[in-house]
């Protein structure tokens, strides 16, 4: 494949580009828009939860009669919030955007291994996301069976579910193309001297993430095809015999198993959790190493932990299914594996915490977000342990406790890491600097309100409030004591929304600002900073393809003149 330098029109340069950097930015912008959209859905839902059945301000007119959120639509918003945040927001941003842009740069490749496939992957994602959006306009509204789409409910749900399945098939295909590309790039296109143990942790995390996507997504595609058959061809893969719906026995052949869907779904969806968190580890590691000005603690143990984490993530999925009536011995198996998988997570978190030890830390915006990530991920991880044990899960399953747990991982966890990444690499992508003041305001307000949203969920969940209540638990006596928290969480959510204005304004101001053109403003060691201009050259990335001599985190090497030694520096 030849990359030529002829002049390109706007369309070929920015829209149908095969340059990994442009595709990365396309991924980034699309996924940020979806993240915002998914967040807006949640802010609407939080109004209903805080003030049940009162008209919703601002957007009430779009919703229907009197601006009150109907319960069916509440279900739709919930299902779509989950789907959008995970499949259209966080994964494309963490894997599609950051992976595309920085993996080739960090390994010294001039592009991805398959540039055309890369563009196809983005456009598949775009198409899939449009199909997901179309769901809102079909009769009966968007998919409303939860982001997990459990049958038999999903099998008999409104048309929105079919649209959801088609959208999902597109998204799966997109991420398959993307993961093949990342894997082939890392395996084949590492530059001279870039051995496996000299790869930056960020590349390792993307590599393992790609493996998870490659092997975990296809079973969900298979499950999606089966559910489509159930919905369109009248098969009964997930429909047990003699199912009664609205007082009538269904006439389909029966003999299917709803558990089958759950197995195939969680076979994807548990590794998906690590797809969400691994790139975050990668970004945080880069930022922490850079801003503590010292080597990362235990490079090898980090790498091995992450590889182990990747493998183990395939054998823990049924801990989402303790209450489905599985046998007890298989439950024991999954409890054991679930406890085992917490070990590498703890190793990683410990290594990152120890990396702070004795460093002279620079508290800039990316570092603040990275530091915020550590305790937030810690809370999310530790609160997961009771859910991994069947006995405790009986009480906690399907309550707000679960919601609190995984949001701590994904929202103040992964999304903080992604913000850290955006602030960290913004100078590389644009050649401009972000505003530190706005960035810090963004961090502190986000940090406070994130906790304001999610911490009360643990309290509500422990009190037994179910996660799926349209009225926030108003009619349940056991929820009465913790009902006031609904308002706390909702107000925090809206304020969290407002805090994001700092980010948006910051981006606009910084993009309009002047180019400083500094290639390496953070004094970093990896190839993306040391061997490219800011922004990197349109074609081919490097003036001269670098050769690697050093490890990725050679900060403050004793006897060295500067406090960082670039990977491409000889000797």
């Amino acid at each position, binding site marked *: 494949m030849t990359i030529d330098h002829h002049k390109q029109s706007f369309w070929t340069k920015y829209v149908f580009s095969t340059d990994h950097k442009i595709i990365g930015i396309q991924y980034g912008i699309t996924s940020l828009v979806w993240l915002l959209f998914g967040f807006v859905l949640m802010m609407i839902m939080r109004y209903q939860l805080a003030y049940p059945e009162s008209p919703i301000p601002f957007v009430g007119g779009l919703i229907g009669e009197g601006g009150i959120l109907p319960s069916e639509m509440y279900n739709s918003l919930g299902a779509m919030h989950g789907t959008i945040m995970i499949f259209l927001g966080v994964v494309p941003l963490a894997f599609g955007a950051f992976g595309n842009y920085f993996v080739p740069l960090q390994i010294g490749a001039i592009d991805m291994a398959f540039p055309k496939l890369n563009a196809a992957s983005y456009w598949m994602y775009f198409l899939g996301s449009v199909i997901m959006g179309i769901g809102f306009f079909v009769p009966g509204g968007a998919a409303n069976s939860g982001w997990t789409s459990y049958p038999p409910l999903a099998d008999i749900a409104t048309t929105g579910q079919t649209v959801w399945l088609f959208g999902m098939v597109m998204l799966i295909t997109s991420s398959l193309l993307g993961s093949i590309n990342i894997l082939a790039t890392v395996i084949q296109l590492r530059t001279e001297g870039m051995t496996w143990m000299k790869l930056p942790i960020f590349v390792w995390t993307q590599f393992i993430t790609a493996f998870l996507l490659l092997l975990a997504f296809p079973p969900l595609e298979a499950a999606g095809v089966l559910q489509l058959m159930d919905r369109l061809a009248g098969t009964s893969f997930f429909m047990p015999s003699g199912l009664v719906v609205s007082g009538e026995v269904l006439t389909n052949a029966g003999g299917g198993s709803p558990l089958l869907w759950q*197995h195939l779904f969680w076979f994807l969806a548990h590794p998906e959790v690590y797809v969400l968190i691994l790139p975050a580890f990668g970004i945080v590691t880069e930022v922490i190493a850079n801003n503590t000005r010292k080597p990362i603690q235990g490079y090898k143990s980090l790498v091995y932990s992450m590889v182990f984490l990747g493998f183990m993530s395939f054998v823990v999925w049924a801990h989402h299914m303790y209450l489905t009536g599985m046998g007890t011995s298989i439950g024991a198996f999954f409890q054991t594996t679930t406890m085992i998988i917490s070990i590498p997570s703890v190793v990683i978190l410990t290594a990152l915490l120890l990396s702070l030890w004795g460093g002279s830390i620079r508290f800039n915006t990316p570092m603040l977000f990275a530091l915020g990530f550590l305790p937030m991920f810690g809370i999310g991880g530790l609160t997961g342990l009771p859910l991994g044990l069947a006995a405790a899960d009986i009480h906690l399953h399907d309550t707000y406790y679960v919601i609190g747990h995984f949001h701590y991982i994904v929202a103040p966890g992964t999304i903080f890491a992604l913000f850290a990444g955006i602030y960290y690499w913004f100078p590389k992508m644009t050649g401009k600097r972000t505003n530190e003041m706005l960035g810090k305001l963004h961090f502190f307000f986000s940090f406070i309100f994130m906790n304001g949203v999610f911490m009360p969920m643990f309290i509500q969940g422990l009190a037994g409030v179910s996660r799926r209540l349209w009225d926030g638990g108003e009619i349940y006596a056991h929820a009465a004591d913790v009902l006031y928290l609904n308002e706390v969480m909702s107000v925090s959510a809206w304020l969290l929304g407002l805090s994001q204005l700092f980010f948006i304004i910051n981006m606009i101001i910084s993009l309009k600002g002047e180019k400083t053109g500094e290639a390496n403003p953070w004094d970093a060691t990896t190839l993306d900073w040391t061997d490219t201009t800011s922004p990197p050259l349109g074609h081919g990335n490097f003036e001269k393809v670098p050769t690697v001599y050093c490890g990725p985190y050679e900060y403050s090497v004793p006897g060295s003149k500067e406090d960082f030694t670039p990977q491409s520096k000889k000797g």
Partner: protein
Amino acid sequence: MTPEEVKHHIKTYVLVFVALAFLTVVTVAISYLDLSVRPAVILALIVASIKGSLVACYFMHLIDEKVTIYWTLLATVAMFMVLMFVPLGTMLNHTQM
């Protein structure tokens, strides 16, 4: 690859083809024996696995590859086994109780 090697390969391909055709006949013949389910399943899967590995090793030249492919496929096979058998474990346990 030299032309001599290719010609040698072609001979192998023809042999593999003959073996595949023969095994197809065998697997159909076994199905007419009216074995009970368990031995029938085991036999059919053994024959299919032999055929599958012949195709993979010779037609897909797996036998000549280096470790990168082996590691990738090993991981895939491991996950495939998990996918095939772990849900089944749930089910068997479930029906026993």
